[in-house]
């Protein structure tokens, strides 16, 4: 049955695979990282999980994680496409 009103439903990828927006890709240097979690806290799109894995399917490449990392442990590498 169709909805009685125009109603959207929550779904991952509602705005498409936003990882395709990226021109620079964040790369974490695990040696330099002290696991403070600030990058994950500040990612506007919650693309960094508790194990500091970055979801590149969705990461928009804004670079906030790299800018705010106190250890300068995140590099922004140009995407080759």
């Amino acid at each position, binding site marked *: 049955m169709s909805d009685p009103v125009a109603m959207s439903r929550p779904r991952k990828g*509602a705005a498409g695979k936003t990882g395709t927006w990226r021109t620079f890709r964040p790369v974490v240097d695990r040696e330099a990282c002290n696991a403070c979690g600030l990058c994950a806290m500040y990612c506007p799109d919650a693309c960094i999980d508790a194990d500091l894995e970055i979801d590149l399917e969705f990461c928009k490449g804004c670079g*906030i994680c790299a800018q705010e990392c106190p250890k300068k442990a995140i590099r922004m590498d140009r995407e080759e496409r």
Partner: protein
Amino acid sequence: MAEIPEDEYLLKCTTACAGCSAALALRYVLKAAGPDTVLVVPACCTSVLQGIYPNTAFAVPVYNIAFAAAAACASGMSEAFASEGKKTNVIVFAGDGGTVDIGIQALSGALERGTNFLYICYDNEAYGNTGMQRSGATPIGARTTTTPGGKTDTKKDIDRIIAAHNIPYQATASAAHPKDLFEKVKTALATPGPSFIHILVPCPPGWRIPSDMPVTVGKMAVKTGMWVLWERKYGELTINGPSRAVMKKRLPLKEYLSLQGRFKGITEKQVNELEQQLGKNLAMLAKEEAGEC
């Protein structure tokens, strides 16, 4: 201090610009509010952030509504939930244009009626969604698409307009200080009656800053005293966190202005005006906190 939950209520990803700190702020608002929450959203970037029908990136119900009606709609919702014995949080999440300009009378009415809700104004200091026209919240000297030579009028002091309604809880916050924001949303939702939180959200395209800079710029707003973090509970003002130190010693305003392309053409006179307003605001807050006014 409550632990910030790992749950996310903005599913990957919204359509927000890369580096959008309004989305960052909303992430923490929803973490604090939890799943039993309804958002009321007037036209603004947040209407678009949700994604494309029939899908949405928001995992809580959202009622999208016309500008002038947001707070009135929230009043009705809040009453309806109460009459059914439900404790659902009703949160208006509105832009600065939707708050300080277009939605102000409905907001004033809802505050006066004592509606049990939280009204959040996320302030990117312009009409972002329609291409960065100036709003009543745009500061002096900032270039927008309708003030190409820099705005000549003063930023409207919405916080003192709200304060005149004597509501139980009012606060300022910043997307660059998520823990402080999280705590304030928790407090607001635990306080019966109307609450208001005004969040500064640096916006990369609007402020003409690179997409990696919103958090740095947001922190600098606080360090220079351009933005002050405070809360007022039942009339008692407290200046919070990093803003406490700023009351004694602050960084020069130009360290905030020079990070942003929108202030490129600002005149000496306008910088002085901003300095004066900033100093006056800090002095008034210090007096109020000390119980001298």
